[in-house]
């Protein structure tokens, strides 16, 4: 059944799953297009790992349906898993075996023909800089090396879609950066379609074309970062650097100006303002100049994914209280 190719690599429609009475995934709907890197964001227990399990046919959905690479995970899991690669939350490698033995085993499970498997093992070890230590037991590897090998295992059979579940979890900053760079280069060089589950917002902001933000099994928002910013955060953030000290009285006066939503001094000489629109900026500059202050810098600031994420999570928590 490989005439399954269609526009979307992943389609989830009202997908649901419960562990007993707890709804881990609840009415989840989204799509992932070919070549996209989509981040599935949410705190622990949001339902990210369960979603990956559902999309790979490890768990049967209690509601809704999904299609991945044209296959129904619930009924065609075996065929589907030949074409998906999954990096689990822990590397889940056989530590008593060597890296080559690990890759050999997973290649055989994916039914790669023997000569091709041999070549792929060497390619993967080279790509992830593990060739020299390929015959050493995985238990002797550092966390970063294990994660690289686990990523290599997920890519061994050239999957059509990659699921990466918390790929930098538990890694030190250096190893974390290494893994992120690897994922970034996979995406740029090979155009892999990736669903990246993470609670690391820096990682998501750097790697993802689009994000899906989840909480308690529900999708809170989905879209490109810019779209979410426009949709969820009204107005603009402005950083203003001035030379002179600013009195509390003047600060309060500026805060009351029309178009200024909030204002806070961040450090000496630096003010952070949330304003309604760009049109407010000339009025602010005029006010500062008229009050004899020397402006060093006026800079509009893009609000980060972190702010969007926490805004949504706070709203979701508020709604459940």
């Amino acid at each position, binding site marked *: 059944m490989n005439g399954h190719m269609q526009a979307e690599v992943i389609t989830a429609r009202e997908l649901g799953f419960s562990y007993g009475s707890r709804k881990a995934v609840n009415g989840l709907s989204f799509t992932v297009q070919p070549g996209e890197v989509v981040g599935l964001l949410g705190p622990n227990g949001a339902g990210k790992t369960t979603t990956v399990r559902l999309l790979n046919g490890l768990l049967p959905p209690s509601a809704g349906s999904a299609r991945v690479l044209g296959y129904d995970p619930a009924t065609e899991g075996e065929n589907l898993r030949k074409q998906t690669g999954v990096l689990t939350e822990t590397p*889940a490698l056989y*530590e008593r075996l060597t890296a080559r033995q690990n890759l050999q085993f997973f290649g055989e499970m994916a039914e790669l023909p023997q000569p091709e498997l041999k070549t792929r093992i060497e390619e993967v070890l080279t790509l992830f800089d593990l060739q020299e230590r390929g015959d050493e037991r995985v238990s002797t590897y550092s966390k970063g090396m294990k994660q690289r090998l686990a990523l290599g295992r997920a890519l061994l059979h050239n999957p059509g879609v990659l699921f990466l579940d918390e790929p930098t979890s538990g890694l030190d900053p250096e190893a974390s950066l290494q893994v992120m760079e690897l994922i970034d280069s996979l995406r740029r060089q090979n155009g892999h379609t990736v669903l990246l589950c993470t609670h690391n917002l820096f990682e998501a902001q750097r790697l993802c074309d689009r994000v899906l933000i989840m909480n308690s099994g529900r999708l809170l928002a989905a879209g490109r970062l810019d779209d979410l910013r426009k949709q969820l955060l009204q107005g603009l953030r402005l950083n203003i650097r001035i030379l002179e000290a600013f009195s509390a009285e003047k600060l309060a006066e500026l805060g009351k100006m029309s178009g200024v939503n909030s204002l806070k001094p961040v450090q000496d000489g630096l003010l952070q303002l949330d304003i309604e629109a760009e049109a407010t900026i000339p009025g602010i500059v005029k006010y500062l100049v008229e009050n004899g202050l020397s402006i060093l810098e006026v800079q509009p600031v893009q609000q980060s994914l972190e702010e969007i994420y926490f805004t949504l999570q706070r709203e979701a928590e508020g709604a459940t209280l």
Partner: protein
Amino acid sequence: MKMRIIIAIVKKDLLEVLPNKGAWLPMIIVPLIFVVIMPLAFLLLPQVVNLSPEEMMPAYQVKGFLANLPPSMTAALDGLDQVETMQVMILGYFFAPMFLIFPLMISTIIASESFAGERERKTIEALLYTPASDAELFTGKALAAFIPAILVTWISFIIYAIVLNTAGFSIYGQVWFPLASWFPLLFWVTPAVALMGVAFTVLISARNPTFMGSYQTSGSLVILVLGLVAGQAAGVLYLSVGVGMLVGLFFWLVAGGMTWFSIKNFNRSKLLTTG
């Protein structure tokens, strides 16, 4: 079911057991004690300490044992003195059910490593993400425990036969072992016991996902084997060929039932949502 996938799982599981001394040391030490050390002690000790047969084993005790034996078994003891009779009784008959400890012990050790150990070390999820079907995963893992259990038992039996005939040749002057009653035990009862060990461990490991916990609980099955040993020693049950076949049938039925339950409970969804 795809053989390549099943063979890959068997190979991987055995490769994983090899570096675990806690798993394979008992598989070597226990058979070594039963097939080499104990038989040599029974055969050679009377000669070394130089006691008369009457001093070793009074005639009335031997008669008491013989009185309980079926005629088919007493025929093999004709013309032997008290000590020789007891040696043949112990090594030729009473030791037979002890051999069932091997398939049971080995199958439960490897199955605990393979089923519970994999969950304990959190490697199971990567395995579940492979294209293998639940049936292939179960079969591969079950065979990884079943095959070594049978092979170690058979190899132990060959060593036991060599030890008995070599060390006992000066006493009996002939190759006297194996006795007919051992064959149903080895080729009929042993596979059933090995399968029972695997299936029971799979059931246990669903609730007890640690290697030691699963192995220790599965070890309770040894009571069945000790029951056979005690039955023979007490004169209640002698493992003649016919009785061996019946005992085997009982174990196959129990193993079949347990295997059915364990297959029914072995699926990705249950592995991820229980334990």
